[in-house]
């Protein structure tokens, strides 16, 4: 080969190398990927991964019961409104009156955590990436179990409700072999897939996935072979018209100095 041939080859090789790396193919090759699933479970997983694309707004009521030691329970009711891509409000009330109540609000720019007992709030910024969905895996091949990518807005929802509304992280963080499609059931008049996820012989979850939208209608978690959490919607309205004032900071609250 002459000098010119070497020059052409090296230039072409560098260009190819840059293209390979910048296209993300490098990380794709190296990243640990989940095994591909076939059959009905494949459809279940895909529906859950893409659930955020199936609705624009949500409104309703949900309830969670936590089961502690000595048969103690803590139950919270949660009224909620979510308007994609970045607005939401969740009013949480303890049924036992334990004081762990609060209101979480995102107005699309800021996030407010309101303490309803002492009428104070903390404010955080909703980062720009909260509306950037480009990193979300939309197929099983894109999932990485060790480093699941949560829905970027869901990350900022300070409530267990986010596990129902945005189930993508739950699905990604499961070993696919741990998921079993048990059957179909109806909840709130909606058809669901009933799926069990077994993380170990004593830690497992039961979830009911809405067949048409992919959100979870109920999520029951077991730890050490005992029930730990039972979270479910009590009512659910897809794409309602929500008053924009819902997402504004209510009057009467003062900022709290953060720790």
């Amino acid at each position, binding site marked *: 080969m002459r000098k010119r041939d*070497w020059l052409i*080859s090296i230039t072409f090789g560098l260009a*190819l190398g840059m293209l390979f*790396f*910048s296209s993300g193919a490098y990380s794709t090759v190296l990243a640990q990927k989940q095994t591909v699933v076939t059959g009905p479970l494949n459809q279940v997983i895909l529906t859950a991964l893409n659930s955020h694309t199936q609705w624009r707004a949500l409104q309703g009521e949900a309830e969670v019961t936590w089961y*502690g030691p000595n048969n103690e329970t803590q139950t919270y009711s949660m009224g909620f409104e979510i308007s994609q891509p970045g607005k939401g409000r969740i009013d*949480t009330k303890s049924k036992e009156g334990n004081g762990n109540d609060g209101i979480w609000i995102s107005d699309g720019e800021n996030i407010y*955590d309101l303490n309803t007992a002492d009428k104070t709030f903390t404010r955080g910024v909703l980062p720009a990436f909260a509306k950037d969905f480009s990193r979300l895996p939309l197929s099983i091949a894109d999932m990485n179990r060790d480093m699941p990518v949560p829905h970027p807005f869901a990350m900022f929802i300070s409530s*267990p409700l986010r596990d129902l509304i945005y189930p993508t992280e739950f699905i990604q963080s499961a070993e696919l072999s741990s998921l079993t499609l048990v059957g179909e059931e109806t909840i709130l008049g909606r058809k669901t897939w009933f799926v069990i996820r077994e993380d170990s012989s004593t830690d497992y979850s039961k979830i009911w996935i809405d067949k048409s939208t992919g959100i979870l209608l109920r999520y029951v978690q077991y730890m050490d072979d005992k029930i730990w959490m039972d979270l479910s919607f009590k009512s659910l309205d897809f794409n309602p018209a929500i008053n924009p004032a819902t997402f504004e900071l209510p009057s009467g609250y003062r900022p709290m100095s953060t720790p």
Partner: protein
Amino acid sequence: MIKAFSRITVSVVVATVAAFLFASMANAAGPYTINENTLYSAGGYYPPIQIYNPGCAGNYCRYLVQDSYPDTWRWADTKPNMYQLWVYRPLVGQAAAKYWWLTYRYGTTKDSWFVTVDQSKNKGTWAYLGFADYVPNDNGELRLSEACVPGYWCGGLKVYWDNMKYNTSP
């Protein structure tokens, strides 16, 4: 024909080397790990207690039990231009906890947001806490307290400080 074959062979070799070099450059920007032994107070009096458990990253975690007087402890500062951030959910995780992520530039707070992570779920995986809106930055920090989070079980559960990791945008 032979010339074309030689060009292709050299190109493939050079492409492989180039890709490796680019990857090495990227690796130079992380990920970096900061473990829980770097913690210092950001409004905390009682230091998190160290335990040995194979379910923790590096076999060790620290914890505080939820109470009404939460202590805030932070990991060591990151390098400049911190970009993406993760925190490890140890297999012994129990409680929901609110992480507070900050970045600074010229002494001014730039990024400041809270991410609640339920440590009882998706255990043994890295919880993604997002990426910085402000790059370049001089450093970043991650804080955590054992305060209860509305809607989650409150009282008597252990909140864990384990490894965090991040990368930088060079």
